[in-house]
């Protein structure tokens, strides 16, 4: 238990003070830290260049300045990112990478180039016809351009070999986190919903090799303990993210246990490995082709609902919580289909709108409480 607490404390440190992690890396290595906006940035290229890629996913703050770029109906995550950027919070970063997956992200990249002169912004566009060979070669070229930009930023070349090595490290990290999410199901009292989230999130601010080791020792410490019994209601989370923190805090109180997720902020990061074969940049492009069940990856068959239903069956979950990032059109479009399919499959679900900034704790509480009550009488 002692060891577990120590590991969790270290992870919590990273989550609470990403700025500290950035400065420490720069001090130790004298190298660059690159911010990665959501989602699917090929961090391996950055890592291979000896730089530290870290996740930039906004956070809770007051929106004051970013209103000069974005109206109130932009998703809160991007309003927060713009706000932090304008306040200079990201000035320790050497650059950010903006993958323009949705209309909002396109505009964020554009506004960033104009408004945030301290931190260069490298844009990327992912193909929608991602399985088509011309799509894969398009994306390979996009990645090639990114590699060149990173090389001229750092003054170091990024070799194919180094990228292949980085892919090994990242795939190992993905595998480890996947295992953690499985093992965590047996320890719902030690690994609460909040802690589960924190373990995953801490990976955004650490060297992935180091994070893998940390998670591996967490897994073995957990496995040394007897499985914990819980009478909690088992849920799967789907959506962009499960923040603000006040949201998952409610899970303990109302006895909700997270047995799996399909969050962009969490599982979508690590459920698809980089496949073997071809040049490293092609491999990274083919990873995008293999992504499934994500609202940002074109899929006319809309397999996300089936994927979630399978997850419910596999994990024995009691229901699904749709954590809707308010104003996120890609995810909002998926919802009517999810709703219909869940109803058909007789899987209860809760639709809950989240905003990073909003202090809507009371409203969230009412919704969660209602859901918990409904589920316990089923």
């Amino acid at each position, binding site marked *: 238990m002692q060891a577990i607490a120590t590991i969790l404390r270290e992870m919590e440190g990273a989550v609470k003070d990403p700025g500290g992690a950035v400065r420490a890396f720069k001090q130790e290595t004298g190298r660059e830290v690159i911010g990665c906006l959501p989602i699917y940035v090929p961090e391996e290229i950055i890592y291979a260049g000896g730089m530290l890629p870290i996740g930039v996913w906004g956070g809770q703050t007051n929106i004051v300045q970013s209103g000069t770029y974005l109206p109130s109906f932009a998703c809160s995550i991007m309003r927060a990112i713009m706000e932090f950027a304008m306040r200079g919070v990201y000035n320790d970063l050497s650059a950010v990478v903006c993958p323009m997956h949705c209309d909002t992200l396109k505009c964020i990249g554009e506004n960033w180039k104009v408004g945030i002169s301290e931190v260069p912004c490298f844009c990327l*566009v992912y193909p929608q016809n991602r399985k*088509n060979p011309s799509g894969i070669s398009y994306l390979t070229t996009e990645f090639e351009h990114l590699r060149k930009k990173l090389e001229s930023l750092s003054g170091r070349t990024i070799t194919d070999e180094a990228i292949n090595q980085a892919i090994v490290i990242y795939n190992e990290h993905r595998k480890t986190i996947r295992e953690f999410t499985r093992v965590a199901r047996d320890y719902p009292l030690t690994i609460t919903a909040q802690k589960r989230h924190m373990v995953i999130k801490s990976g955004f601010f650490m060297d992935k090799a180091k994070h893998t080791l940390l998670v591996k020792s967490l897994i073995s410490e957990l496995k040394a303990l007897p499985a914990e019994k819980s009478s909690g209601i088992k849920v799967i989370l789907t959506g962009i993210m499960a923040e603000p923190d006040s949201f998952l805090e409610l899970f303990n109180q109302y006895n909700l246990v997270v047995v799996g997720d399909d969050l962009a902020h969490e599982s979508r990061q690590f459920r698809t490995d980089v496949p073997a074969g071809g040049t490293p940049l092609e491999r990274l492009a083919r990873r995008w082709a293999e992504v499934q069940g994500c609202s940002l990856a074109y899929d006319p068959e809309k397999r996300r609902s089936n994927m979630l239903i399978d997850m419910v069956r596999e994990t024995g979950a009691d229901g699904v919580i749709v954590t809707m990032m308010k104003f996120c059109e890609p995810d909002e479009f998926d919802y009517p289909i999810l709703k219909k399919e869940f109803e058909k499959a007789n899987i209860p679900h809760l639709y809950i709108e989240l905003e990073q900034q909003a202090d809507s704790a009371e409203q969230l509480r009412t919704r969660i409480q209602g859901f918990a009550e409904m589920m316990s009488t089923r």
Partner: protein
Amino acid sequence: MSEKMTSKQMLQKLLDDHYAGALAAKERGELIAWSTSIAPQEFCETMGIYTVYPENHAAAIGAKKGSPELIEVSEFQGYSIDICSYARVNMGYLEIQESVAGKIPLPDLLICCNNICNTVIKWYENIACELDIPLIMFDMPFNYDYEVNDHSVEYIKGQFQEAIHQLEQITGRSFDYNRFREVMEISSEAARWWKKAMALAQAVPSPMNGFDIFNYMALIVCMRGKQESIDLFKLVAQECEAKLAQGQGPWKDRPEEYRIMWDGIACWTALSTTYKFLKNQGINMVGSTYPDSWSIIYDSHDLDGMARAYSSNFVNRNLDFRVDNICQIVNDFKVDGIIYHCNRSCKPQDFCQYEVQRQVGDRTGVPSVMFDGDQTDPRAFSQAQFETRIQALVEMMKTRKQQQGIGVK
């Protein structure tokens, strides 16, 4: 076509025929495609597949005040109020298949091109899933560099090939490349005439009543690959030239006092009230960011050019281009002021609009206002706010004209 028809009558007739023709084609058991508004229509046109445009249908429903009931249907299904209202209108229509603007036949295949937004990807995915029909996706990567880059062009051409293959499979017929070339020619010719007609509004006073542009737009959307659209835009040009020769302005009963550019889509649900209010102040819309999106001109032997042209419309371009584009319009059309429609539906426009407004203002010195609205969801539009903003704009334009020593009555 009767010779005495005015362009407005001709427009109405062509649109009526277009929609009636689609229904008749469906009756005959022919394939129907639904398509986004700036998708490469050349492929379906070559294949002889009747194509209808949900955005155009939704706009017509909005203009006839029928959008709220369809929006209600889709919101009931779980479509968020934050989603583009064209999509909400259309998903509502899909459910009840009735509208004040008439019926469109349900599609057998879908053509989606995200050169306008990524919203349409999600929207068309959902139709494909609901109806279980094939979707042909033309992905035009957003151009964060100023120009369309070469690897985008290659990728787009790869998709053209894929689309041809898909269409051959869907129809069981082979693709006729000679016909394709013809269609390419007609389409570019239509775009040329469209551009020419719209450019006539550069004259002072403009012979064109600007809101007509919003109406003519229906045809460049729906019939860009057909000879009839060339005929119509020629007629529009003729009429304008005749008015020009006589020095006639946009209206018989009122002179044009201020020339404005309108950024964004019209508020279809308030088309006549917004129009009247502008007209009462002597404000004529002479330019807009929209019409140029259909100036898709390329050489009929040039697939690269076609790929580039389709990827080049302004919402698919970066901020620098958008600013240049508007500055150019301000210049060419001798604009006195700009109205920015912050259209609740259209995130790809809105989320760059504040910065575009600042930069265009800095560069041109032309005053501007922004109002909140929506193309087809009347709940997001307030006539009172619109009027206040326009009055403010008039004040600014008046002051500026006085400073420049131009008399205003």
